């Protein structure tokens, strides 16, 4: 008997005998199942309600972002980086911007670095809030979504204030950031940083000791530290297995070495451990935000290189050279010295890397995004093996895969 799953067919008998006297059934879980966080399809062989085999099928959200980046100029490709991991656009921008800057051999001013850290941490919070809210819904705590999206909305308001765009900000660019933050942004940030710790307490009071939540997550989806390392899992998946690895500490970028924070880890190696790691990370993110605000240096937010960034508006009226630079930048862009470079940053999901190859022209030869979700989905079969279907939902949830990131 074959295990093929035909179009439109939901259940197929495999002919294999299960442990409970019945036959193994092959079912299609997704791609349009609400708990797959997008369009993930899993072909699952079930014995009763236990998972015996699991094969993720991806590609339903493939948008050809890497191909599009090759067709755009260096400064234009920033906008496509926003869209692969659509829950953390500034962190994607940061990986791309750091890679291009490394090839160009430029270093951004301290204020730009601090603003990049602020945006990264706000994004990490927003991304974890979406995860917490949707996971709460899946595990029977539907109030969570209301609480989490309330705070996420204030973060999106801040995105709008600083960049004019709520989600796909394109705020961090090669050479600096789009514009300096407004005083109103800092007022909003200050209010947010003051209220967020008590909000996190509120989430914890709803979930951490919640007996239903604990029963659904403790001991579910175990992934040992050794397996997590070998399988290439990063981010909370790796730290939830007790491995102290965070790119912000291990290979600091954008001035993260100047901030005092801890790496959140948990030795539980299960879904509950990954939940604890994310909650701790949210607290640490607030700590970093407070420090970044207090130590924010003054000065420019962009490099002073007219070959890479356009001149300020005022200069265009007085300087012929500025007009020429402006014209050249917006008609043909800038060139980047030939070479290739890989830069990795820590996103809410793990290692979000950008591999950029330049052939010395105005457009990238190749832009490859190393997606954390892509790597984090591979241990899924191992984690879900011999668990119930309902537990599989918890496991997909704590893997926190963003399908835009998986498929790019």
């Amino acid at each position, binding site marked *: 008997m074959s295990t093929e799953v035909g179009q439109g067919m939901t259940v197929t008998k495999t002919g294999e005998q299960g442990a409970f006297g019945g036959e193994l059934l092959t079912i299609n879980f997704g791609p349009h199942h609400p708990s797959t966080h997008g369009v993930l399809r899993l072909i699952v062989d079930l014995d009763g309600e236990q998972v015996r085999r699991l094969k993720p099928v991806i590609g339903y959200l*493939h948008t050809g972002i890497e191909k599009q980046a090759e067709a755009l100029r260096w400064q234009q490709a920033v906008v496509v980086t926003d869209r692969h991991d659509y829950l953390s656009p500034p962190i994607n921008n940061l990986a791309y911007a750091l890679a291009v800057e490394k090839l160009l051999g430029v270093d951004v001013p301290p204020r730009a670095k601090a603003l990049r850290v602020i945006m990264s941490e706000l994004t990490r919070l927003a991304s974890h809030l979406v995860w917490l809210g949707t996971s709460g819904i899946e595990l029977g705590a539907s109030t969570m979504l209301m609480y989490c999206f309330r705070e996420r909305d204030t973060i999106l308001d801040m995105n709008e204030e600083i960049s004019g765009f709520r989600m796909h900000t394109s705020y961090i660019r090669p050479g600096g950031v789009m514009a300096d933050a407004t005083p109103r942004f800092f007022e909003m940030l200050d209010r947010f940083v003051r209220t967020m710790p008590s909000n996190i307490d509120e989430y914890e009071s709803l979930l951490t000791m919640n007996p239903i939540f604990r029963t659904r997550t403790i001991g579910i989806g175990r992934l040992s530290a050794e397996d997590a390392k070998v399988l290439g899992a990063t981010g909370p998946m790796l730290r939830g297995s007790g491995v102290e690895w965070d790119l912000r500490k291990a290979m600091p970028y954008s001035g993260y070495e100047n901030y005092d924070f801890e790496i959140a880890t948990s030795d539980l190696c299960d879904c509950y451990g990954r939940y604890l790691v994310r909650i701790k990370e949210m607290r640490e993110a607030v700590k970093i935000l407070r420090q970044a605000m207090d130590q924010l240096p003054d000065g420019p937010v962009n490099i002073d290189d007219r070959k890479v960034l356009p001149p300020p508006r005022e200069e265009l009226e007085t300087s012929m050279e500025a007009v020429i630079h402006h014209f050249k930048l917006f008609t043909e862009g800038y060139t980047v010295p030939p070479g290739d470079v*890989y830069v990795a940053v820590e996103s809410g999901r793990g290692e979000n890397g950008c591999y950029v190859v330049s052939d010395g022209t105005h457009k990238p030869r190749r832009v490859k995004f190393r997606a954390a979700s892509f790597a984090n989905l591979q241990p899924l079969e191992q984690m879900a093996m011999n668990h119930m279907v309902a537990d599989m939902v918890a496991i997909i949830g704590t893997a926190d895969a963003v399908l835009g990131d998986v498929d790019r």
Partner: protein
Amino acid sequence: MIPETLTVERGVTAGDAWVTVAPANIHAALSALKDSGFRLLVFLTCVDHLADASREWAGRYEVVYQLRDMETREQLRVRAYVDGDPPHIDSVHDLFPPANWDERETYDMFGIVFDNHPDLTRILMPDDWLGHPLRRDYPVGGEVVEFSEEHERWQTAPDKA
């Protein structure tokens, strides 16, 4: 470290260490590197150097392996240049489990055939897709919209037959 007999060239670009190996030696080279501590394959991908005039290339396709030693935090990029239609190279999924999906993706996007891969099928594109989209001779495609380069042509009224 990697035996000198296996390396063709080594260097550092923008602070990233790299080493080039012959495609026939890729499995042996990565196996040696894994034993010497580079236990994580961060990613595996390919670069198509079709009509790339920036330098002389040993082959059209450059298969890139980014390795990391999580103890010493050292990173190393391994390159292998392959040619042919379809280009072939050995699979390393038995050394590094994450290579399984990465190799499927590279096959899907560039048409590189990874020998000894257990399930070399398309992963992102539909199963019946023709061509390999990230090759440089594969057109980007798209629809003609206002302000696109074909705008002039788009604006002219269609011939009244």
